[in-house]
């Protein structure tokens, strides 16, 4: 009897195994990943998708490249209910989405903390990204903005890269005077009033003031950019523009990459832009830290972050999270550097053995890697784009000499305070 029972148990177990093997497999899942509008990002995303799908045969990752205006594309998709599962997003945009419940609270995943630690995400940054005590965004990629300079133009002008704010103005004037070239050719082409342009000129110097790059007070209810620090920083750019050392209208070409401007504020992506333009080689340019008020270090800067989020509309948030954690792995971080020439936001870039060969081969990237720790997030305010819009109009006005720096900033501050309300 006992023997028969054993036989029955073995048979039942065997049958169960056979049935489970023949039974329905986990249903295949497709997740969508939207990337910003450039070739290296799209190439990296496709590479990630292929590698991830090889390890996860049940999950298909569909990569889509967003158009020129990624922010508008995302907003329209969310409104239409066609948002992707995973998206690249800047923290400035993520704030509004988080508050409206459009993003998944990533700290709701049980392995969130472990994933952040494994990916060496700076703890203070993860903390700074919190909105109402939750993390909706993973710090992923950064491009600390530093000062690029054209060695030949500097040599021709007989000047050294600037360390202080005053040096920056003096060097700019000397370059204009002695070479005839522009001293400053900012990203985005000339002096324009759209808010984002200020992330690639004013903000870097402003990050090094006691205001720490913040345009609003701590609770986001009042403009502070018109205080003495804001005015002094704006005066630097007003002096440069009024000396004719930077263009005063829109410019359709990249003046720095074309060799027509001696300096620009840019991230490491500038090397690939220079290669596309084909005039300057990496050895023709130098990169230094952002000039500080008195020329001393540390030098802080804007990190130009591009991070990762999952939309609440996602039908497969668990698979989306799995894909994100894959993108945070060491080998994925290395692929990010190799494919895009940019850096993952991690605190072990120069100490992790996985990345050593990359930095040995690309010594020019070390200064960017070291600067990751000195990047400052912008104001976490839902109104930041409007604030930047008013500020930027004031910036243009002062640079053109149509108002003093103080007058222009006071006027913009009044407009900003008006929209922030009582």
């Amino acid at each position, binding site marked *: 009897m006992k023997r028969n029972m054993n036989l029955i148990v073995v048979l039942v177990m065997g049958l169960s195994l056979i049935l489970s093997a023949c039974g329905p497999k986990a249903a295949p899942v497709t997740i969508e990943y939207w990337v910003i509008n450039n070739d290296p990002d799209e190439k990296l995303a496709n590479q990630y998708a292929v590698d991830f799908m090889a390890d996860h045969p049940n999950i298909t990752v569909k990569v889509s490249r967003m158009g020129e205006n990624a922010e508008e594309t995302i907003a329209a998709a969310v409104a239409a209910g066609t948002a992707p599962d995973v998206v690249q997003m800047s923290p400035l945009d993520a704030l509004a*989405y988080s508050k409206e419940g459009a993003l998944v609270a990533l700290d709701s995943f049980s392995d969130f903390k472990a994933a952040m630690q494994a990916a060496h995400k700076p703890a203070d940054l993860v903390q700074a990204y919190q909105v109402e005590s939750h993390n909706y965004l993973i710090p992923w990629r950064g491009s600390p903005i530093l000062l690029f300079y054209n060695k030949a133009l500097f040599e021709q002008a007989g000047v050294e890269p600037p360390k202080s704010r005053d040096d920056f103005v003096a060097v700019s004037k000397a370059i204009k005077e002695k070479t005839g070239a522009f001293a400053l050719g900012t990203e985005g082409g000339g002096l324009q009033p759209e808010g984002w342009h200020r992330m690639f000129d004013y903000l870097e110097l402003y990050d090094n003031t006691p205001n720490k790059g913040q345009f609003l007070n701590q609770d986001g209810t009042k403009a502070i950019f018109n205080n003495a620090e804001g005015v002094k920083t704006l005066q630097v750019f007003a002096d440069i523009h009024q000396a004719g050392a930077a263009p005063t*209208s829109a410019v359709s070409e990249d003046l720095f990459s074309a060799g027509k401007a001696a300096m620009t504020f840019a991230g490491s992506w500038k090397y690939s832009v220079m290669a596309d333009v084909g005039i300057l080689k990496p050895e023709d340019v130098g990169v230094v830290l952002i000039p500080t008020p008195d020329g001393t270090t540390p030098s802080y800067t804007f990190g130009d972050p591009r991070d990762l989020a999952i939309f609440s509309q996602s039908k497969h948030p668990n698979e989306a999270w799995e894909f994100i954690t894959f993108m945070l792995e060491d080998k994925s971080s290395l692929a990010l550097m190799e494919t895009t020439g940019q850096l993952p936001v991690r605190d072990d870039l120069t100490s992790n053995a996985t990345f050593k060969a990359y930095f040995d081969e690309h010594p020019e990237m070390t200064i960017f890697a070291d600067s990751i720790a000195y990047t400052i997030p912008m104001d976490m305010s839902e109104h930041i784009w409007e604030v930047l819009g008013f500020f930027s109009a004031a910036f243009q006005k002062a640079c053109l000499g149509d108002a003093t720096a103080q007058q222009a900033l006071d006027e913009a501050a009044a407009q900003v305070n008006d929209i922030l309300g009582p």
Partner: protein
Amino acid sequence: MFRRVRSLGQAISQAWRSSNKIAYLLVLPFVVYFIVFYAYPALFAGYLSFHEWKVISPDKPYIGTQNYAYLLTDTTFQRSVVNTLYFLILFLPSVVIVPLSIAVMLNQRLRFQAFFRAAYFLPIVTFDVVVALVWAWMFADQGGLLNYSLSLVGLPPVRWLSSERLAMPAITVTTVWRWIGYFTLIFLAGLQTIPRTVYEAAMIDGAAPVQAFFKITLPLLNPVIMLAVVVATINGLQLFTEPYLMTGGGPNFRTLSVVYFIYQQGFRYHRMGYAAAAGIVLFILMLVMILVERKTMERRFEY
């Protein structure tokens, strides 16, 4: 009452039976297109203008006329309305006088007439973004074609796009250049409908060419001029691409058009209800202007 409804139903069914059903089928694609892409969005915009909608939020709370009330006190919106009307004041006469003059010349017996007609029409088939970028380069403060030309004759550079006074006129020049071909074609078509016999009779009576232009051409072209003015008003009030690409709405918001304002509010700041209210105000402004234009310009001349 019941009988009246029945007779109405009968009338509709009779009309349907006696109508050309193929014709309904042929207009159906446009009707569907119109409903999906024009009528529904317009009605939805009207609905949104009384609601607060952050685009990214599923909630659209009803807020009555708050969006409209806020528009009245919003100095940036007011500035955009003033800018747009200023643009229109510069744009309307330009797209009537310049293309009409060209059309009159092209209507003469000219050598290479076909070439000139094609050449004038070229800007309208050129992508507006390309036009704006090329003109931005021409107007650039430093290294621009215009300032370079001025320097050749010893004149100082002019801040075409960065001056509060000149930026909108510079944008108007760009926009007029883009539309010249379109309006020239309209006027040319109008000119060719005027019988030669009317001019011949006037010449026999001793009319000079200038008199013929003012007494014959202009009056008989009135319906075409009115059409051009209405089309130009509709397009002029929707100014966007040129300021967006050439000046970013600056300097000091002096080239911020109403449509640019709507774009910023809706897509940059996610205030879609507010943007919709601005859109409705623009629509009303457009409607009023067109009605005024029709009332003041509509004349019927016959010879």
